[in-house]
């Protein structure tokens, strides 16, 4: 009996340690994968930007490929992420993902991007700090688009209407170019979603 207890105890102790370590890995270890992917994706984007300086249109985008650079001055001058196409777990490990089928940067409709809040570099960890009027800068292949934060809300994960072309009005035809950022809320949980909406205010030539 004592022997059995001892074995169980020792195994539990070991398992507990491994579990703690796994949590630490999720928070601080997963980011190194994202960092490495971002380096490659941003390099790829900058190369394309350099080549297609005069080109129009958004170019072709494949699932997992980089489509634009996201900058949010409020979160720091070095805040820069390559947005990839797709929001499956696989793509979100690389960085913020664009919901396929929603508008592309600058287009009329809703440009919806989603990213991790606490793991894999946690690109959207601090989007709760955004205030109405803050800039969201998106460098796409054709131009630089500047959106301005218009609204912030916390909703249930079932509220899929936040990604509609006109958020909250599934049937309406869009007349504005919007951006919507979604992530988990509260931190370390998946109970709710934190949503930040923005409206396109400027389109300008992209600076390198």
């Amino acid at each position, binding site marked *: 009996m004592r022997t059995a207890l001892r074995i169980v105890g*020792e195994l539990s102790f*070991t398992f507990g340690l491994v579990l703690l370590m796994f949590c630490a890995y999720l928070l601080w*270890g997963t980011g190194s994968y994202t960092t490495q992917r971002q380096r490659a994706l941003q390099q790829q984007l900058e190369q394309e930007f350099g080549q297609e300086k005069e080109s129009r249109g958004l170019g072709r985008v494949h699932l997992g490929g980089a489509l634009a650079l996201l900058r949010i001055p409020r979160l720091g001058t070095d805040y820069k992420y390559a947005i990839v196409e797709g929001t499956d777990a696989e793509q*979100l490990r690389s960085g913020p993902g664009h919901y396929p089928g929603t508008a592309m940067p600058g287009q009329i409709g809703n440009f919806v991007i989603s990213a991790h*809040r606490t793991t894999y570099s946690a690109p959207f960890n601090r989007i709760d700090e955004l205030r109405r009027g803050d800039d969201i800068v998106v460098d796409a292949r054709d131009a630089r688009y500047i959106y301005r934060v218009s609204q912030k809300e916390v909703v249930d994960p079932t509220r899929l209407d936040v990604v509609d072309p006109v958020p909250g009005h599934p049937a309406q035809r869009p007349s504005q170019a919007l951006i919507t950022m*979604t992530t988990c809320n509260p931190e370390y949980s998946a109970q709710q979603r934190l949503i930040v909406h923005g409206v396109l205010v400027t389109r300008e030539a992209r600076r390198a």
Partner: protein
Amino acid sequence: MIATREPDMYAFIWRRLPGGTVVRLVVSLLLVGIAAALLWYVVFPWLEPRLPLDGTM
């Protein structure tokens, strides 16, 4: 550490290590390091995508 007849993984490993206390301490720390590195760089990255963790946590 008290030597014991009962099955005890950690005590067993400790007894099997060569050398005196200092050498054993160094070697056991090394072993712990290797185990941790294996978990961190091989096991966890393999395991994480297979767990039903939420996509945007």
